[in-house]
């Protein structure tokens, strides 16, 4: 845009801000606000969390970028196989975005009632400004949900180089498994051509182990959440898992282990991060992605504590470690492929019995008091699945709160009323159960 001269004469001198930098500023403001409420809204955060707070501050507020020396591969869904990207020396950067600012600018490309996450991602890509990395070499797009699948053409139009991985929507059949394995194999081939490196048994094995270590670290962290009282609040866990989207995987793993060590100490001391009767909440549904962590925050502000989750920004991201029988490339790539299909509980699948089973199992193992189910307004699959999940949870006697949200901050009042009422009712329930137990003794 050339500005040959002032368009209007005004009394007051006012410099019009460059839209891009304005956008950036808004983003940073949003990030700061969110980070502050995570960091300072609660007392006694674990010391090891400082690393993660700092990381987010650096990346989202100070504009620092990571991975300048390696090829960066943007992933649109967790189905993009991390192991293969690492094996080829690339770095996967998850592009799912939580900024309201981006959501608004992304709204230009999509219908009004559509998924905030996709809108925000589109908005971010449209700005050609990914906060975490300075450039994107390549975007991998597994054809998971409709909105992502359709928006990918818009992304291509923005000038990104995109690789489409066909992803089956029905995972029970043997054909789908084979189909997906093929997708992954040809992706590995394609990526190795793009990056210009050969996929070797050694690098693949290393990559699998690297990811497995990260998975293990996460599992250790989530195991700690089984403790009652809990050593850490759920909002921090979400922040940690969000960092996995872009942080260096080994550094991340080490930091999580350090955090776990500290938390272990807290557990030994009997420290309680929540209050005495805080209901233990299982979070499920659309993923909370920084800075849109408002729902976990709200739950915890209302004195609940998110001890477990079933979403693609945490639990689903780390589930299903890969086991390989014979360390051949074929075997390894197939093994990696299976991890992303069969174990996945994404609602895009036809009949998602696995998700119900997973939720029931999590509820049992984490002694859950209630489930909060978030669906982004416009995410049809989550909205539709809500009913069957509700029925399933009713069977095992666990109440569920279903909320439909988007990224807009103005929703607070009504949403928090619901959350609070839900948590209050859980508390009453819990108190009654405790009472009965004590009475029985």
């Amino acid at each position, binding site marked *: 845009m050339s500005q040959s001269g002032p368009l209007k004469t005004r009394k007051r001198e006012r410099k019009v801000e460059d839209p891009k930098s304005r956008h950036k500023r808004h983003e940073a403001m949003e990030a700061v606000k969110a980070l502050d409420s995570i960091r300072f809204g609660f007392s006694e955060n674990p010391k090891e969390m400082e690393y993660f707070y700092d990381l987010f501050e650096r990346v989202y507020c100070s504009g620092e970028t990571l991975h300048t020396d390696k090829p960066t591969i943007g992933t649109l869904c967790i189905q993009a196989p991390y192991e293969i990207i690492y094996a080829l020396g690339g770095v996967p950067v998850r592009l799912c975005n939580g900024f309201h600012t981006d959501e608004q600018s992304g709204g230009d490309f999509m219908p009004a009632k559509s998924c905030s996450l996709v809108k925000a991602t589109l908005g971010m890509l449209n700005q050609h400004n990914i906060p975490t990395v300075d450039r994107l070499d390549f975007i991998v797009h597994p054809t998971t949900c409709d909105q992502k699948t359709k928006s990918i053409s818009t992304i291509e139009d923005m000038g990104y180089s995109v690789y489409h991985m066909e992803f089956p929507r029905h995972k029970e059949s043997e054909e789908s*498994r084979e189909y997906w394995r093929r997708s992954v194999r040809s992706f590995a081939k394609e990526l190795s051509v793009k990056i210009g490196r050969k996929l070797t048994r050694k690098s693949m094995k290393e990559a699998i182990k690297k990811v497995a*270590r990260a998975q293990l670290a996460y599992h250790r962290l989530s195991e700690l959440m089984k403790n009652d009282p809990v050593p850490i609040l759920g909002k921090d866990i979400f922040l940690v898992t969000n960092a996995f989207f872009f942080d260096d995987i080994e550094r991340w793993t080490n930091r999580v282990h350090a955090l776990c060590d500290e938390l272990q100490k807290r557990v030994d001391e009997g420290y309680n991060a929540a209050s005495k009767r805080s209901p233990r909440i299982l979070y499920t549904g659309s993923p909370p992605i920084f800075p849109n962590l408002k729902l976990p925050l709200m739950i915890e502000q209302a004195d609940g504590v998110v001890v477990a989750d079933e979403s693609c920004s945490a639990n689903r991201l780390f589930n*299903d470690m890969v086991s390989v*029988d014979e360390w051949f490339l074929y075997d390894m790539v197939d093994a990696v492929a299976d991890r992303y299909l*069969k*174990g996945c509980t994404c609602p895009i699948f036809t009949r998602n019995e696995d998700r119900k089973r997973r939720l029931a*199992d999590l509820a049992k193992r984490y002694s859950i008091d209630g489930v909060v189910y978030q669906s982004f307004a416009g995410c049809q699959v989550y909205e539709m699945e809500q009913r069957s999940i509700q029925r399933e949870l009713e069977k095992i006697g666990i109440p569920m709160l279903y909320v439909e949200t988007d990224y807009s901050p103005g929703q607070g009042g009504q949403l928090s009323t619901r959350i609070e009422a839900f948590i209050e009712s859980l508390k009453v329930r819990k108190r009654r159960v405790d009472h009965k137990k004590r009475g029985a003794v």
Partner: protein
Amino acid sequence: MSRLKKFIDRADIRRFRFWVQLSAFILFVYGGYLSIDLGREMPVFICGYDQEAAGMCYFMPLQHQLARDWERLFSAAGLGVLSAFAIFLLWFIIFNKAWCGYICPLGTMQDWITLLRKKIGVAYSNYTQSQYSSLKKIKYIFLAIVIIFPLLMGAGLFGGEWRAAFCKMCPGRLITPMFVGDFSQWSIDFSSNTAIFLTAFGIAFTILFIVGSFVKKRFFCFYCPMSAMHYIFSPFSILRLKKEGDKCTKCGDCYRVCDMQIFDIADDVVSKNILRDDCILCLKCIAACPEEDALHLDIVNMALFRSTKDGFAKRMGVDKERE
């Protein structure tokens, strides 16, 4: 106790199995040199044609016994058949199908061929699910051969060549004696058409066995009538393979490592008893399962070996917490 349990759960089942198999192989194939005789009711393919075997595959005596005249078979002499069968069952119920995965010399042979293939660096093949589900029925046909032909012979409906028809076709007859230097079974019997057919089939089957197990893990076990027989009696066994369906994430790790390609192990989240007819109870699935307690081996309802995250990490070599 809990430490012992933890130790077992972290065990490197692969190595353990290798050594057990090796010792069992030596014991069974060469046991005769040490005058070890475990009887003629072994529930594994240790062929009676091996002069130095420490026991005998039950199928050979079974076929001979069933081939008796019906008058004799259904008389008091039939009790001998039943008592032999009882001994077979007693052996079997102790280890269940672990006989296949840990003891069977023919199974061990296949695992060694697999090792060789791995060393050479050739990738393995698998059946597709549809091939698999149709091929696995063959073993019941073989079991029918083992039982029906001798019975019909006893009724006088077949000639004497059919007495031990399956033994004539079995690769064990050709392979096991080779280890004590006896190659005489590698021959075609031209004395009658039936004999030609059976011995030629035996050779063909053996070749198929060798080539097949080179490209497909545990190739022969799909067709093994002993496996079919085991399956019929496995409900009585004290050793059980169990699965906790709610803990399973269906990630398919177990299915992928399974030599026998048993689909249910990953996909069936309803049955508790997950031992299928093809299973060889090699426990690779438990070793490969990353979920805590999702799969476990029970002995009289006591968990002997469980899948744990910890054990998984150790076996995958990622247990060192910090790099």
